[in-house]
């Protein structure tokens, strides 16, 4: 038995954390583990969703199965899901999968009495368990209008009625997407960007600006770095300098007496004071880089192929997790790890019996060269 762990232990750092959104870094691990985490988050973390609908009255414009389908897709708060049993595994109920341990009952009774169109929304669904309710998407701040709350299921006209009873069960995204708790889970390789300073020096300001702008997302920016600078306020000189931000630089320089405009430096002289500006291209947001090679292609087109080197670090990932609201984003990640551990346990423990069965006759025959 291996006593010493030969695998590297990953590190996690959280960047952003809201109720339904989490952004974190996962380092010192392999893409296969990061991908496994992502796949489990999407497809195998259990939630609760409406699975059986008994319709008593439906005189709306949508037919029964249409409404049942819509009800299934409504996200329900599923904190209980990890501890619930699957209906098929439940031995407490009498076979119909509707007992209190494995299911939650909802009912909806609406009738439109007024001339105004009645919106039947998820707010009208009443649950038998107050911990499992349709997710409330309203903004926590008070000045959000109360009209836009709840997912609209159907709209009713005067005289139309909808009465139904629904059973919600535990399930996983693999069976049906309504049970997936993740709106989207993505991870990207962390980029490492190295700018070749020497090559960058040979570019003019215009070329630099062109190159920086060729990136569809704002990864680089030109920054004027002043050398021997004294930011004193004497009249024209000060006004000139304070205008040195962004593109105004080139224009405003023309106002002063330009001594020289070399490839990347502007030396100007006003009021007998000199200062020299060097424009450097710096990385302002490395993670905005989407691995499109636009900046590389532009560098080649400009005749400077080694201008920048961008490497995707193979062991550093930035995860973005957005949840539907059924489970909190941080809880989603924790549940995913839990499910992965359960899978590993299942395989480990089932190894105790060796079965070279008839089922594997084919595999066995193939292996034996049959």
């Amino acid at each position, binding site marked *: 038995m291996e006593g010493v762990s030969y*695998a590297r*232990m990953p590190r996690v750092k959280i960047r952003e954390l809201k109720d339904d959104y989490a952004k974190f870094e996962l380092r010192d691990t392999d893409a296969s*583990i990061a991908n496994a*985490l992502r796949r489990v988050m999407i497809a195998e973390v259990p939630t609760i969703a409406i699975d059986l609908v008994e319709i008593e009255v439906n005189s709306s414009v949508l037919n029964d199965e249409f409404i049942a389908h819509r009800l299934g897709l409504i996200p329900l708060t599923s904190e209980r899901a990890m501890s619930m049993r699957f209906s098929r595994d439940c031995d407490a109920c009498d076979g119909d999968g509707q007992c209190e341990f494995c299911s939650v009952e909802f009912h909806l009774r609406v009738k439109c009495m007024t001339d105004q169109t009645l919106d039947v929304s998820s707010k009208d669904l009443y649950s038998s368990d107050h911990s499992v309710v349709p997710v409330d998407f309203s903004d926590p701040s008070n000045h959000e209008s109360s009209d836009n709350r709840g997912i609209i299921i159907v709209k009713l006209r005067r005289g139309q009625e909808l009465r139904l009873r629904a059973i919600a069960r535990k399930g996983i995204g693999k069976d049906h997407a309504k049970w997936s708790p993740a709106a989207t889970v993505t991870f990207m390789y962390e980029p490492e960007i190295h700018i070749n300073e020497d090559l960058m020096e040979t570019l003019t300001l215009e070329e630099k600006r062109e190159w920086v702008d060729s990136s569809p997302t704002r990864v680089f920016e030109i920054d004027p770095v002043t050398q021997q600078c004294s930011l004193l306020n004497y009249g024209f000189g000060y006004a000139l300098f304070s205008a040195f931000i962004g593109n105004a630089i080139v224009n405003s320089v023309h106002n002063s007496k330009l001594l020289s405009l070399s490839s990347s430096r502007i030396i100007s002289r006003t009021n007998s004071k000199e200062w020299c500006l060097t424009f450097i291209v710096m990385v302002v947001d490395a993670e905005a880089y989407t691995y499109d090679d636009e900046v590389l292609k532009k560098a080649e087109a400009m005749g400077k192929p080694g201008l920048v080197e961008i490497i995707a670090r193979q062991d550093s990932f930035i995860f973005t997790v957005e949840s539907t609201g059924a489970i909190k984003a941080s809880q989603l990640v924790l549940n995913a790890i839990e499910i992965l551990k359960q899978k590993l*346990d299942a395989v480990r423990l089932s190894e105790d019996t060796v079965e070279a069965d008839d089922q594997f006759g084919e595999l066995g025959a193939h292996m034996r060269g049959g």
Partner: protein
Amino acid sequence: MEIGSHSDQSKSTFCLVDEDHTFANPVRFTLNQDPRVTFCGYSIPHPSDNRVNIRVQTTGDPAKEVLKDGCQELMHVCQHVRGTFDKSVNDFKRTKTNTEQNMDTK
């Protein structure tokens, strides 16, 4: 989840039912890190069948044991990630409330 193995204990193919890339790829990676493993790979015979074959060949230890150890190792990694994530969340929440308090008192 079942096993198909043969006369030589150090080389065998494990056929897992109801599993896919989600499980097999990390296990494959972890086993490849193990110095006792000479070969480890997985394949999915047909995407419509929910089966995955993991092939393990070792330097002498029984392949079953090595697979179990690999799963164990991966479990430790998962535990560690979980603990680190929990700690990170708590740290983040703490620094957030600290900055909010600082902003309130200022």
